[in-house]
């Protein structure tokens, strides 16, 4: 079992201050919350895109492209909405391409390179189980836009979860080699699980706008652990990573991801594509 997230994790409102934006500005908390969800999806899609032409078989190239496209679609809608709430006229592309690393709010789980198929499936299992519970709950948000996005996305991530679960089971209960590799992959991703459950702006939760991640924890872990058991694997006993993505603190790999993603757009200021 994992150690519960530290209760001293700062809520999102204070992070706006850290980034030089006015935290007291109306909507700042909501913008930060939506950006967190958007950036998780965007960065995950960016990593998923790497697999297209590199998957173990052609069917999997198609499936991973599909999953990446779903995540990218979620990111685009959420980024556009974040820009709208923020009210500075920033588009989805402005937010994706012109923010610096410290302004990205995604969790560490999604940002590290994933060039091993076992790691990709372990991560997708964790991420989609999390998104499945998150969007399931967010579909009843008092914020109509978030509820709409979540209502659509929950169906997509249910498929992602199904896909990842099947692979984790096949790899875990496949050959001796695949069992060992799948366990190693799960062990490698596990430290990044607790960050998903860090608390968000309490006021947004109280208003029924945001979902309290802490409350999702039991259901998410139950989903993952059921798959891990079927795969004849063990739930890793490892200490959590420090985390900090929601506050704009990332791993060193994030800078390279953004450099690659943003380079062309930034090389032609003001151009349209």
């Amino acid at each position, binding site marked *: 079992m994992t150690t519960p997230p530290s209760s001293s994790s700062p809520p999102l409102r204070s992070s706006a201050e850290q980034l030089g934006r006015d935290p007291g500005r109306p909507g700042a908390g909501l913008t930060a919350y939506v950006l967190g969800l958007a950036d998780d999806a*965007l960065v995950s*899609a*960016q990593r998923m*895109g*790497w697999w*297209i*032409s*590199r*998957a*173990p*078989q*052609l*069917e*999997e*190239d*198609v499936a991973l*492209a*599909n999953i*990446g*496209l779903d995540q*990218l*679609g979620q*990111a*685009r809608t959420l*980024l556009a909405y974040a820009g709208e709430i923020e009210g500075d006229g920033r588009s*989805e*592309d402005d937010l*994706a*391409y012109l923010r610096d690393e410290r302004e990205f709010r995604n969790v560490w789980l999604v940002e590290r390179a994933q060039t091993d*198929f*076992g790691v990709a499936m372990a991560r997708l299992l964790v991420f989609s189980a999390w998104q499945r519970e998150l969007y399931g709950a967010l579909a009843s948000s008092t914020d109509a836009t978030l509820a709409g996005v979540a209502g659509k996305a929950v169906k997509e991530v249910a498929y992602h979860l199904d896909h990842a679960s099947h*692979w984790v*089971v*096949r*790899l875990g*209960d*496949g*050959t001796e*080699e*695949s069992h060992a*590799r799948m366990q190693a992959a799960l062990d490698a991703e596990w430290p990044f699980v607790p960050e998903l459950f860090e608390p968000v702006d309490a006021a947004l939760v109280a208003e029924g706008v945001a979902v309290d991640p802490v409350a999702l924890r039991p259901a998410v872990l139950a989903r993952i652990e059921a798959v891990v058991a079927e795969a004849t694997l063990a739930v890793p006993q490892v200490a959590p990573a420090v985390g900090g993505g929601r506050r704009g603190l990332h791993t060193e790999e994030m800078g390279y991801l953004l450099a*690659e*993603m943003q*380079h*062309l*757009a930034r090389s*032609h200021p*003001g*151009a*349209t*594509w």
Partner: protein
Amino acid sequence: MASVYGNDFGARAETSSDEPQSFLDLLAGEGRVEPRDEMPDAYRRTLVRQIAQHAHSEIIGMQPEGNWISRAPSLRRKAILMAKVQDEAGHGLYLYAAAETLGVDRADLLDQLHDGRQKYSSIFNYPTLTWADVGAIGWLVDGAAIVNQVPLCRCSYGPYARAMVRVCKEESFHQRQGFEILHTLSHGTPAQRAMAQDAVDRYWWPSLMMFGPPDDDSPNSAQSMAWGIKRFSNDDLRQRFVDMTVPQAEALGLTLPDPEIRWNEERGHYDFGEVDFTELFEVIKGHGPCNAQRMSHRVRAHEDGAWAREAASAYAQKQAQKQAEKQLVRTEGAA
């Protein structure tokens, strides 16, 4: 043998002397040969090679465009590009499935790609150096592929013809998106416009080479035509492509890098300069800018994925065994 994505895979002649009457009747009546129908071995081998090499071209073709997924300059473009490269994987799947109806196995065909016994279209051995190359591939390369492939929708072999109907629909969408990328660039900033022109300059001649060697240097076309696999000659298809593309270049406001292009009233076609095939033959021989890179990318993906494929088979076997044991218990219980 002449083939497809391009017609540029290089020749390997197959001819046949002993052809069943039922097969000849089907061809004469413009009917479709289906997997269980009698067919000459040479016809079968020719089709296997053509369809396999077409499938290989689709999956190798994922790489040059996949090269820009991580760097696409807007999220909309990124989504379109991911969907397009995904389509190419899908085309590979339809085509391998069509080849399998002829009694071969996808795994064997992939082995033949990986060890160089089978080829793929040489166009994919050119690099995508700028974002505009993604547009040029869509507009010119997919445009040339469509010209090659539309006649294949009437190919005498049913499963191949049907796969091509679907492929052609998607390719025509791809071509439009390539045109649209270039249109946006050519109407954008001076740097974007220059990027578009440079891409067209680099991709024009290789696209013309996709139709294969000139007719008088393409000894195998006759047999493929007699079998209803090929419908038009390399030069006819190349002319059709030029006629289609020149007005589109004008609409884009971009220049095709051939000073000899001009309308010939008498022929009712555009004249164009002579294609320098020495380059094509060098690329086919393996000396193109990206031959080694494309193959090593493909082989690495295949080898890196071996453990996952093996695990999937082992798991499937275990499940089948469990199922059989359950069945046995049930049968014994009933008895």
